[in-house]
């Protein structure tokens, strides 16, 4: 959703990608060097290679076509963009020729652009070398996680974490997949180990996952302590508040549960209100754009005024920005200055 920030899965899985590329934030753990002997990798025949032997090879023309189709998954600004028709044609090529390069790379980009997460994970799995590197295994595990295939993710990530130790991203993601797969007891050592090593890098996500795992294993005191610490650091985090309320209720602390439940409800309602505003704004933007393009500035101003009355703070900042632009466009410098001042004030400048 629009205003739901910090989704655990996205954050964690994105961080896995960073770890794989060695671009993690300062202090973050990195995937350990590939434990597989280099010679073995060289000698190993990949599944793709084996499959390729049984299929016709792509002609130069077909390869060129695949590459050409691949360009359709970027928009004019270079951002990923899904082209359903191109994706369908790529799938046909894959049926005929298998997922060998260069089709594999094009398909990966296409699946990513089209948010076809299961297909993406399946392609990673099918094209995994016989002796994959740690990074390749981590990418595959993260892909299964993004596809919500938690058992598949755990199958890859748990052994990998065992090889690399609890200080890696693999351990964190292994724990994440195990929590989702309903195996919180197995998840906890990985989560806690990774969290301790990262020095709280996972922030509220870390507190939430560890707290939930403790809650589901019956460690109520541990869950409460973890979640309380998380809430102290992120007092408006809805998921943490909801989990803490549940932990209090489970521990028989009814008054605390009621109090925190109310905080959680308020946080969710605030978010819902924000979302309502933002989604309406998004939907109405087409009309607004038309008015702006046509120079119907009074209509634009009316729209902003209408939104302003009920707007949450984060939307007000955007609306003030819009006012500045509107007043500048309509040659109202005094109003623009006032709006700019209000914007600065809102931002605490």
């Amino acid at each position, binding site marked *: *959703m*629009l205003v*739901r920030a910090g*989704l*655990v899965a*996205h954050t964690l899985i994105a961080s896995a990608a960073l770890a794989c590329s060695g671009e993690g934030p300062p202090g973050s753990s990195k995937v350990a060097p590939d434990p597989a002997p280099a010679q073995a990798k060289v000698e190993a025949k990949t599944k793709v290679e084996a499959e390729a032997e049984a299929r016709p090879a792509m002609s130069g023309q077909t390869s060129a076509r695949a590459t050409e189709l691949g360009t359709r998954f970027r928009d004019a600004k270079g951002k*990923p963009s*899904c082209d*359903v028709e191109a*994706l*369908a044609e790529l799938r046909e090529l894959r049926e005929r020729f298998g997922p060998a390069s260069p089709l594999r790379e094009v398909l990966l980009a296409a699946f*990513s652009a*089209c*948010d*076809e*997460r*299961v*297909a993406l994970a*399946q392609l990673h799995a099918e094209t995994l070398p016989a002796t994959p590197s740690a990074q390749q295994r981590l990418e595959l595990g993260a892909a299964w996680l993004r596809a*919500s295939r*938690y*058992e598949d993710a755990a199958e890859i990530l748990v052994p990998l974490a065992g090889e690399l130790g609890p200080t890696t991203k693999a351990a964190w993601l292994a724990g994440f997949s195990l929590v989702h*797969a*309903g*195996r919180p007891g197995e998840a906890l050592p990985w989560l806690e180990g990774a969290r301790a090593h990262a020095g709280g890098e996972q922030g509220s996500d870390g507190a*939430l996952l560890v707290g939930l795992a403790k809650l589901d294993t019956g460690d109520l005191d541990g869950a409460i302590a973890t979640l309380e610490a998380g809430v102290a650091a992120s007092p408006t985090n809805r*998921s943490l508040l*909801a*989990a803490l*309320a*549940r932990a*209090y*209720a*489970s521990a*028989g602390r009814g008054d605390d*549960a*009621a109090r*925190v*439940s109310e905080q959680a409800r308020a946080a*969710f309602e605030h978010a*819902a209100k924000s*979302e*309502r505003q*933002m*989604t*309406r*704004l*998004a*939907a109405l*933007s*087409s009309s*607004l*754009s038309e008015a*702006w393009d046509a120079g119907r500035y009074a209509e*634009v101003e009316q729209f902003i005024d209408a939104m302003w009355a009920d707007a949450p703070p984060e*939307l007000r900042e*955007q609306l003030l*920005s*819009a006012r500045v*632009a509107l007043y500048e466009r309509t040659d109202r410098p005094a109003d623009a200055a006032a709006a700019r001042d209000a914007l600065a004030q809102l931002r605490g400048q």
Partner: protein
Amino acid sequence: MTTVTSPCATPLAAASIAALTLACKPEPPAPEQAPPRSLFDEAEAPSEPTNPAEPATAPQAPSSGRALQFSDVTKAWGVDLRHHAGRNPDRWIPEIMNGGVALIDVNRDGALDLFLADGGQLAGSAEPGVGPRLLLGDGHGAFTDVSEAWGLRHQGYGMGVSAGDIDGDGWIDLYLTSFDAQDRLLRNDAGQGFVDVSAAWGVDPRGWSTSAAFLDADSDGDLDLYVVRYIRYTLADSIKCWFRTIHVYCTPAMYEALPDLLYRNEGGRFTDVSAEAGIDAHPAKGLALATGDLDDDGDTDLYVANDTSRNLLLVNDGRGRFEEAGVASGVAFSQLGREEASMGVAVSDSNADGRWDLAVTNFQSEPTSLYTRRDNGSYRERSDAAGIGASARARLSFGIEWIDVDNDGDEDLLTANGHIADNVESYREQVRFAQQNSLYERVADGRFVDVSDAAGDALAYRGVSRGLAVGDIDGDGGLDYVVVDNDGPVQIARNTTADRGHFISLWLEGSSTNRGAIGARVSVSVGGQTLVREVRGASSYLSVSDRRIHLGLGEATRVEEVTIRWPGGEQQQLGPLDADTHYRVVEGSAAQAYVPGAEVLQP
């Protein structure tokens, strides 16, 4: 329904009108923002599956020896019913939501009748619809359409149906929910027809009602009425939404929630007690509800499934005042604490631990949540651990019911599926508008296996299913089901599972308690396990399943003792009872065998 919201988030941050407006023009969003999450927002959800036509996990062989089977007998049984949604080029949200159905016995002949809550016509729609339909069943699969004779006529845009005996005369009455029109309360005139008593009973909610339930909220022996409501939405101020250049259904996230309503039965009149009952303090975008004594304290609680907002667990204090405990109990959100787009709900003891669990259908890419209740009253979401999650994410589910297909004593799970966007295939290559319904067989240790692909031609069908109701339509001891496709056909699925176990069926009638025995609990010990069932005032989505208690007995040919806890707490023991028999049990009296459809059993 689909929405296009995220692309405009960035423009807002761009600090200028130009950016705000221009960037919100149809243009490709970033991939993370792209999924038009539909009615119900998928932006943060995991992806839709690669191949929605197939389960995300390969079907496994069930552990029981019986292959669960359903045959599509709609034509064979002479049923030719079609739901009308009146779809409009403007893509109004109500038109992809409705399709309620009921399996009830309106004429007390012991045979199930079929009621369809038709949609009809939104302003400017091409299809007028035909109004609600009532087909009387003969107990053997033949139906007669008596809609006109029973006084049913098109009136308002229908959503769903609820059923209960509001005046205790022994004849089941109906409550019809609707969009942008007055809901209707129809009193059953001794099996001769329905009479609209909405005004006389003081029932006049307007806006958008979805599901409803009759329950004895204040434990006074008569049935009260809970009405679930959705969003504040009118055709006049509806908004057009776009995903790139594709016109899509808007998300409900952009509309305010309507609070639900609770009406207390004052004897011939309902009084709105929503405020004093604590109901109106929790407005949410409601679509479905289930009733049950969820905390095992002798009264009837409620669980309300809400779309893109937290779900509600309303715990009854026994006097009709409800405390919302969903957040603290762990059933308001997903496992990680986020709202889901919940559609339907059903209650069962899914892991045979003696506590009621909740199964909640959600949007595509979200699991059908399975909340299992624990000793301390909290719940744990375990859809993935139970084997449901991955398969359910591959479909968009609405109706849901527990159903012991093979009469082995445990309840399997059935969901009615279908996307909300008829043009979803133009922006999601692998997602289909018409989808296969899902059957999950319970195997062992509270685990389930998706057996949809191997369960017969009824489940091979791909449709846009919404309402789902379960009952033994042909009286052969196997639970059948009926699903309604939104703006499509009604399908009747006959249970053709070979070598089903034995069964007993109990039609309970209260005397000192509500006549329909809603809230009564039945316990039977058989084959080393204790089976517990409850007469529920509501479950599924917009629909009503047969209220008779159906117990699969496996190999047992006799039940030594049946214990009934009537609403209010009175206990009654029955037995021994022979298997494979339908019994009517009036509170305080012995069980009376009957043959469905053979004769009218007078109140």
